[in-house]
């Protein structure tokens, strides 16, 4: 059975009886050693070829899938709060994957879109949600979103996030989070209304990471909406995540669940991180009763994934799951350069083409300036990344690899010290939301460059 609270409780019960290990044992011993053993067993060590950043060997992807299944069965998810491991049987894993939806309709009436599982080089365009939860001043929320949503390139609404509520600092894990859940939900509705997009689907909620914010936001929307269940880190869960899953199921929402696999961290190199990412994807459907998974791979050195190693790892793991299941995957594509920089556009072309061609179903973007700088997000980066993601539907993996090989050398030396670009008020007149000329010109120029690389770029419907 899929998506049921009773199933979820069965796995929660297992947390009480599961093997007890310390966090250190899990992070430093069990996780890395198991992944390493599995990589060796399936002959996957040193298969990453940084000269070809997009994997094109689909048999290799299938081999990774087998390794990912074994990792899911041998590892399970570690529960941070009980310090125990929740494992699943092969039967449970496979039946939950089988029962998972291949299509999820979201939004009402003319705002409805269907998020679909895709295959590598699928001609059906993937779904784009945006913007990502990047911190914004309260007063910019409505102008940014009203303008952003005027473009039909944005199918589902997520961010930005706030760090104040009615002017007061939003402190994590306090009642300010509950307030933020309600407050952000109201701002969303207002901005969607102004953009003429009432009824569109939502990822809830950006400004709060806890179950309080989740419950607050869910209570204000007609269901189904998608809950953002970010687990503590790859192959882990905790009570906060389980709270959110139960709330979402009971209220009739969809669960998106997972966490980035940090390449260079506990999941080690690109091969082991790909195996962990596949295992992470698979386990969400049983232990969290998820409707879609979210287990991207980031390179720990720069917290992004548009460089060679992370891109390779993310493409091979996405292809593996896309070819061998009908699971819906959400993965983020993380730039490190900021708004109105050429590097941002180059990273975006590489990342969004590679992931679209690898069979990714859904993304939330962009992570301009690594998501680290307040107000560093504008509608133009959102529209551009969506146009590339959708335009790349149907492209071959070979073509995606060719594009990556051409563009990555232009920016990879800047990963450690990327240009952070400029903020929304520096790039737009907040009253009219008109972009400054330089910003507009760069956007139009980079659209032309993308077209010249062979990516059909759908129009944004606002500026072009």
């Amino acid at each position: 059975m899929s998506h049921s609270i009773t199933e979820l409780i069965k796995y929660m019960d297992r947390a009480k009886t599961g093997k007890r290990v310390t966090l250190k044992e899990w992070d430093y011993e069990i996780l890395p050693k198991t992944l390493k053993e599995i990589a060796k067993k399936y002959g996957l060590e040193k298969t990453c070829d940084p000269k070809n950043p997009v994997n094109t060997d689909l048999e290799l992807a299938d081999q990774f899938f087998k390794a990912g299944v074994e990792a899911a069965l041998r590892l399970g998810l570690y529960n941070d709060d009980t310090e125990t491991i929740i494992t699943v049987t092969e039967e449970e894993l496979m039946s939950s994957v089988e029962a998972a939806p291949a299509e999820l309709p979201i939004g009402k009436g003319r705002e409805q879109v269907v998020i679909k599982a895709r295959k590598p080089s699928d001609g059906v365009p993937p779904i784009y949600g945006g913007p990502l939860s990047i911190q914004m001043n309260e007063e910019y929320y409505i102008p940014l979103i009203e303008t952003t949503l005027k473009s039909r390139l944005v199918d589902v609404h997520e961010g930005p996030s706030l760090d104040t509520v009615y002017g007061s600092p939003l402190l994590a894990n306090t009642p300010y989070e509950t307030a933020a859940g309600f407050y952000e939900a109201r701002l969303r509705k207002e901005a969607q209304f102004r953009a003429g997009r009432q009824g569109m689907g939502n990822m809830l909620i950006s400004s709060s990471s806890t179950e309080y914010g989740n419950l607050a936001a869910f209570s204000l929307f007609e269901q189904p909406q998608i809950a953002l269940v970010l687990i503590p880190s790859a192959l882990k869960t905790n009570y906060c995540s389980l709270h959110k899953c139960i709330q979402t199921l009971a209220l009739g929402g969809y669960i998106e669940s997972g966490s980035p696999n940090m390449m260079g961290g506990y999941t080690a190199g690109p091969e082991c991180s790909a195996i962990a990412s596949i295992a992470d994807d698979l386990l969400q459907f049983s232990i969290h009763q998820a409707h879609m998974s979210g287990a991207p791979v980031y390179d720990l050195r720069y917290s992004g994934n548009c460089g060679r190693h992370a891109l390779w790892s993310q493409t091979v793991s996405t292809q593996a799951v896309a070819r061998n299941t009908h699971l819906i995957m959400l993965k983020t594509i993380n730039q490190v350069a900021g708004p109105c920089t050429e590097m941002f556009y180059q990273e975006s072309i590489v990342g969004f083409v590679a992931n679209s061609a690898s069979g990714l179903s859904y993304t939330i973007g962009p992570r301009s300036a690594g998501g680290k700088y307040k107000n560093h997000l504008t509608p133009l980066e959102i529209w551009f990344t969506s146009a590339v993601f959708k335009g790349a539907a149907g492209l071959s993996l070979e073509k995606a690899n060719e594009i990556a090989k051409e563009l990555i050398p232009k920016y990879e030396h800047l990963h450690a010290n990327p240009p952070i670009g400029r903020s929304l008020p520096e790039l737009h007149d907040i009253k009219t939301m008109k972009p400054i000329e330089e910003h507009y010109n760069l956007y139009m120029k980079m659209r032309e460059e993308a077209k010249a690389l062979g990516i059909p770029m759908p129009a944004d419907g606002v500026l072009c």
Partner: protein
Amino acid sequence: MASYEELANSVIRGNAPKVIELTKSLVESGCDPLEIINQGLIGGMNVVGARFKVGEMFVPEVLMAARAMSSGVEIVKPLIAEGDMPSAGKVVLGTVKGDLHDIGKNLVAMMLESAGFEVLNLGVDISPEKFAEAVKEHQPDVVAMSALLTTTMLAMKDTIDVLAEEGLRDKVKVIVGGAPISEEFAQEIGADGYAPDAASATELCKNLIGQAS
């Protein structure tokens, strides 16, 4: 006879049994225990640190190397007079209240340990009071706080305030880091230092402790 180079290489490979064997053999052949540590064990770890920095080694391998190094240190430690044992200093480290991001903090811990610091890693979601308790209990040279969220970075200031209220602020250096933190923010909240990454966090601690002594 075993050589320091061989010992360093075993540390780099994270081969603890070999490190134990070589350390014992060096001790038995009468080598200076401090040299065994500095040239063999820490020498190996310095290479590991450098390789990690350029992305040639990953966290699990660095941790294995660190463990191998400690198993060697355990053997030599009893042979060294307490005051002579090389320790760069003691650091209490944690991610602040409300924040669960721990990857960057753990990297900082790892790099500090590799550079010879004694690190008390308190974990994530650490309240100002818990930091203060740890300072009382362990009397560190440095308190290091990590925050990745705009909604939790303010807890750094709360922690500094609590340390001051408890009369502990002057006894320690306070350093801060994490993606949204900047030098200006560090100054604004009255911290003694900020570092953008784990390698420079180690340098920062060395400098601050150097200044203090």
